[in-house]
């Protein structure tokens, strides 16, 4: 590629971080100002314009400016409702809901249930993902089955689970309707593809010769998986688990059909309680209490989910098993 003779800003790592922080701070200030004067639409135009100008100043490349501008339009569509959602919360209602025992149960179930679903997805998804990475006859058929929940409407997924495992289903002694098992099954059904696919990509990225090297120098297949394959794929497994968990947290359709209200052991109460999965609870609150109350519950759920997501990212980002060299 020819060397550009145009003057461009060149930023090192620290410079990039500083610029990013400054850009975010500017956006926050601009949104606060626009919201305060009752003109949030102005902020949308400011965000698009400021992104285009920043791209031009940094790169002076019409292609980059066009890409950044187009991308910023999508960011407005995604980000502006979120900013408005946060800004329009009424603190008193948020505090009231944050102190509600119903909300506490909802949060517990909303984290605990998806965690079980993610564990189940990984426990049985990792071996399947490893088989996918090695290849086998009929693989495409099995892959299609694994990916099926991605294209099936989730209320339909719930119906399918009831037909398969509900009354008159394959396991008559297992109660799924309104039970914890049913809820975890519904969540696993919709979140397993994320766990399997992320883990499979991690396995596929490992050079076959690393496994050959392990085998030829004495390790069995089990030891090779334990000492070489799994440590090298652990990031993919964690990513798959987080994606599965996040997908299960947000699941509404399948859970609403299979387990609208769930009885489960709730440690703070020292016994069984009944609660609803978070998205179902938010929907119920919206129907009964309106936008303000459901918004407050959603805000709390969003904050807790984001916090957990950030904690997981923090715990996994610097903990490479290679000492941070790969």
């Amino acid at each position, binding site marked *: 590629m020819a060397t550009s003779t145009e003057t461009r800003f060149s930023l090192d790592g620290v410079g990039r971080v500083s610029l990013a922080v400054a850009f975010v701070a500017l956006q926050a200030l601009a949104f606060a100002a626009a919201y305060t004067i009752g003109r949030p639409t102005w902020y949308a135009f400011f965000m698009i314009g400021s992104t285009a100008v920043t791209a031009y100043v940094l790169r002076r490349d019409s292609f980059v400016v066009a890409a950044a501008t187009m991308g910023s339009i999508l960011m407005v569509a995604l980000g502006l409702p979120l900013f408005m959602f946060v800004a329009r919360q009424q603190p008193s209602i948020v505090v009231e809901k944050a102190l509600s025992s119903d909300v506490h149960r909802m949060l517990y179930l909303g984290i605990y249930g998806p965690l079980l679903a993610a564990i189940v997805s990984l426990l049985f998804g990792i071996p399947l993902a490893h088989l996918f990475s090695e290849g086998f006859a009929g693989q495409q058929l099995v892959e299609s089955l694994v990916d099926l929940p991605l294209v099936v409407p989730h209320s339909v997924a719930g119906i399918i689970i009831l037909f398969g495992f509900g009354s008159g289903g394959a396991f008559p002694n297992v109660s799924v309707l309104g039970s914890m098992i049913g809820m975890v099954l519904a969540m696993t059904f919709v979140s397993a593809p994320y766990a399997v696919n992320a883990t499979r990509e991690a396995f596929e990225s490992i050079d076959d*010769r690393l496994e050959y090297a392990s*085998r030829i120098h*004495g390790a069995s297949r089990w030891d090779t998986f334990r000492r070489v394959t799994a440590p090298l794929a652990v990031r993919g497994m964690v990513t798959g688990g987080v994606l599965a968990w996040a997908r299960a947290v947000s699941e509404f359709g399948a859970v609403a059909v299979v387990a609208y209200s769930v009885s489960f052991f709730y440690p703070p109460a020292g016994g069984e309680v009944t609660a609803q999965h978070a998205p179902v609870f938010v929907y119920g609150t919206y129907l009964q209490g309106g936008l303000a109350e459901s918004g407050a519950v959603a805000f709390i759920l969003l904050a807790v989910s984001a916090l957990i997501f950030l904690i997981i990212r923090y715990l996994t980002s610097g903990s490479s098993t290679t000492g941070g060299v790969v």
Partner: protein
Amino acid sequence: MSLHADVSATFTADGAESFHVDAEIEVERGESLVILGPSGSGKTLLLETVAGFHPHDGPVTLDGERVSDTSPEKRDFGFVFQDYALFPHMTVRENVDFGSRYHDDTRDGEELLAELGVAALTDRYPPTLSGGEQQRVALARALAVRPEVILLDEPLAALDVPTRQSLRDDLADVLADATAVYVTHNRTTARALADRIVIMNDGQVVQSGTPEEIFHRPKSPMVARFTGSNVVDLDDAPSLRSALDVGGDDVVTIRPESVALGDDGDVRGTVERVVREDATNRVTVSIDRTSVEAFAERAPAVGDEVWLTLSENDIHVCRRTAPRA
């Protein structure tokens, strides 16, 4: 320990025609066998098949004991890969000691690393090492388990020239008493390290023998060309045919180092090209409708008329089509 393998395996890749490897190799105790062949000839697949990485038909035996049905970890081989295949999540020390828990009799990792000149790297991770350093660590890992046979898959191919030469010297020392199978497409490396050579092409062994036999008495034009000989169809070089006094519908192979250029000789030609190579010049001389390469310390000018003197002992007549080994 001697190794004998007579294996047959078919490999398929998405979107590609299947590739069949059907080859027999034999290595005596303490011998270095080099499998030499062009890229895509199946050398690496043969080596990996012998190691047990791929399903195959036919026996692999160690000292007469069949190991074909044995998994790779029980075959007692060491393996050095072209792109090192060091475990990136383990330190150099952990890599070298990887196999120690599976073998009773192992070599001291630190001692091996010191012998190979990389003792200072023990706590480093492979991605932070140069190619030459990584390959020395990979060699140490393979030697640490005291393998009965060490298999090496183009271990020098990814290295720069000075590093390659240095490591080749070290490999020559390491392989001096070892039973080894060494895969390469580099004839210089093959000549430097081999007790015996097999030439592979299209999944099959096309010739096997000592380096002298392979380089000076190739059985086919393919082997001759691949080992660097001139291959001259005498129908295209009548003056050479009369100078050599060779009849029939023959192809002759002549080592370039056996051709002397001068003011007098067996046959006359015109200098077509001169390429400077380290301490010598590679000169291409056209004769009739063909050309012959020779080495000359003093470079003639392109277009000069020169005489070629051919050492009859180094002229080999071979068949036009390749026979099976």
